[in-house]
């Protein structure tokens, strides 16, 4: 087990910069999730760590070793691939044992480790089969097992759940997390799914266009997003972002929409983006301590049973998503009244998108 350190690690493919100087410290035993849309550089960061791509600049360390020029097989890492990459002509047992055989582990030890891993993953029955005889979920478990038996310093996982159906994905999410906690191996996990990031990561690193946007524990990233990209990317449905202007009276305004927020905040620019998560944008009820009321025309309503998300267009084209409890029936085009929870509004710089404060 070991820590992992990216020191201004960069990767260029010709003129394309896949990864700007990434600096990130992953502590020993930590479950770090790299999350971002496609093209964000998260997979490049992982492949650099694996040694499957060479660095264009900077350094990567695993523990105390600088691994910049070290061959993948000398890095003592194990990787789970999106397509699992099981060796098609080998049985499940041989797939699991392959890395250990390469590492000249004694035969008895191999057998013991493979059996232990097979038991932990409940694939003991499958050891004699070939990969093509397995279902997608079973292949996924074998791929996990192949990483597990190696007992490496670091686990690397490249979107390992994206080929599973929704139910199996949710189930396996918990299982990977449990296994990782049991063995305590440092894990770098790449995904584009913010739910996976939020539920699995000890910390998550949000990336976009080759840059690290924010790193922190899921709660911090969710409740204190560093910028509008993170604010919009993390959370489902996304945070509503509305650009507003500062009026001389200390309110933020957009058309008829007035928020009495700007008073007392130093250095607030004239143009800001206000962000509010759906759970803090509630249907208006008299007597509640919400800022409002505001009116909006319903654009869509998603009733999920336990809650209903209502997308509205308020004054001057400002869009909000309202979360209402239970199953609420509203027609498209109807006007609803809503309010915003004080203390839960995020202010971002309108031009740079950088977070300023939360009011």
């Amino acid at each position: 087990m070991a820590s992992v350190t990216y020191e201004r690690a960069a990767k260029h493919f010709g003129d394309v910069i896949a990864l700007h100087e990434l600096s990130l410290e992953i502590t020993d035993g930590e479950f770090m999730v790299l999350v971002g849309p496609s093209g964000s550089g998260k997979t490049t960061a992982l492949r650099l760590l694996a040694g499957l791509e060479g660095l264009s600049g900077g350094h990567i360390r695993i523990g105390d070793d600088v691994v910049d020029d070290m061959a993948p097989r000398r890095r003592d890492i194990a990787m789970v691939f999106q397509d699992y990459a099981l060796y098609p002509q080998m049985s499940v047992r041989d797939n699991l044992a392959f890395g250990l055989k390469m590492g000249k582990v004694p035969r008895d030890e191999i057998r013991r480790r493979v059996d232990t891993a097979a038991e932990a993953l409940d694939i003991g029955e499958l050891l004699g089969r070939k990969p093509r005889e397995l279902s997608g979920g079973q292949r996924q478990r074998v791929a996990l097992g192949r990483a597990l038996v190696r007992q490496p310093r670091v686990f690397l996982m490249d979107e390992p759940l994206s080929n599973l159906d929704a139910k199996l994905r949710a189930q396996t999410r918990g299982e990977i997390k449990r296994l990782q906690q049991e063995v305590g191996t440092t894990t770098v996990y790449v995904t584009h799914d913010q739910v996976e990031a939020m539920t699995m990561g000890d910390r998550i690193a949000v990336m976009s266009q080759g840059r690290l946007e924010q790193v922190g524990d899921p709660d911090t990233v969710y409740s204190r997003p560093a910028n509008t990209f993170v604010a919009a990317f993390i959370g489902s449905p996304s945070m509503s972002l509305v650009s507003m202007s500062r009026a001389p009276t200390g309110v933020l305004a957009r058309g008829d929409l007035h928020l009495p927020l700007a008073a007392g905040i130093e250095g607030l620019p004239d143009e800001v983006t206000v962000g509010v998560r759906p759970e803090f944008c509630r249907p208006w009820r008299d007597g509640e301590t919400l800022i409002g009321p505001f009116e909006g025309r319903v654009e869509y309503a998603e009733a999920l049973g336990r809650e209903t998300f209502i997308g509205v267009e308020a004054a001057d084209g400002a869009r909000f998503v309202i979360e209402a409890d239970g199953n609420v029936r509203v027609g498209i085009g109807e006007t609803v009244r809503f309010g915003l929870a004080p203390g839960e509004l995020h202010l971002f710089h309108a031009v740079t998108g950088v977070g300023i404060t939360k009011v």
Partner: protein
Amino acid sequence: MTAVIERAINYGLLIFFSILAFVPIAGVVLTAFHGPGEPISGFSVPDPFTLDSFRTAWTEGSFGSSLVTSAEITVTTVVLATVFSVLAGYAFGTMRFRGSTLLFYALLFGLLMPFEATVIPLYFDFRRIGLTDTIWGVILPSTGLSIAFGTFWMRAFFLSAPRSLMEAARIDGASSMGVLLRVLVPYGRPAILTMVVLVFMWTWNDFLLSLVMLSGQNILTAPLSLAFFQAARTSEIQLLAAASIIVAFPVLIVYVFLQRHFIRGMVSGSLKG
């Protein structure tokens, strides 16, 4: 209804072309089973079936030694060409190195160049270094020709092999050679065996190269001795038919043994394993 008609047309066409391909072969086989000296006109069923023509052709054409020579040449060529093609295709298909494109085009040029254009200069070169009238005089050029094709073929296979498979093996601790031998070669068995069948067939059936290189008539390959036999026995077609079958038989055997892989290799581009 249209489905039925379509099926009927498909079957009709397939049967027609099968007959087209099969009739000449059947003609040769039937002819060969006539006894030597029997008068034959056109397509006749032998009465009785006899192997006498095969026996006569075998002894008089001395196909025994020429088959051995052909086997030596072909097996050596296939082994050398396969080893080098797999290695070169692996490099071209999976590794980035300086000059790889240029080298690959140089190799392709070998494929495009008509062999007839080079065989005569090659003969003089080989005569100078004393390789004419030896089996190496045939093995080396045919290996060279086969490597050009084989590298092209194996490169295409390695390009289509899943990258993550190689990467997984590298991370699991395999060296470049380990990745090739333990993961890619077993995975690519259909492609490799297809190449083996093709190279075997081409080398076995080669005529021009052995005619030029083995001009002394001390060593003969099977197709060469068939040609000489044919020149001497133009009128006895049952002997010629028997000799043709003797010479073609080894290719048939190899194909039958490897045909399952051969077909998989031919279609592997369009099917996902």
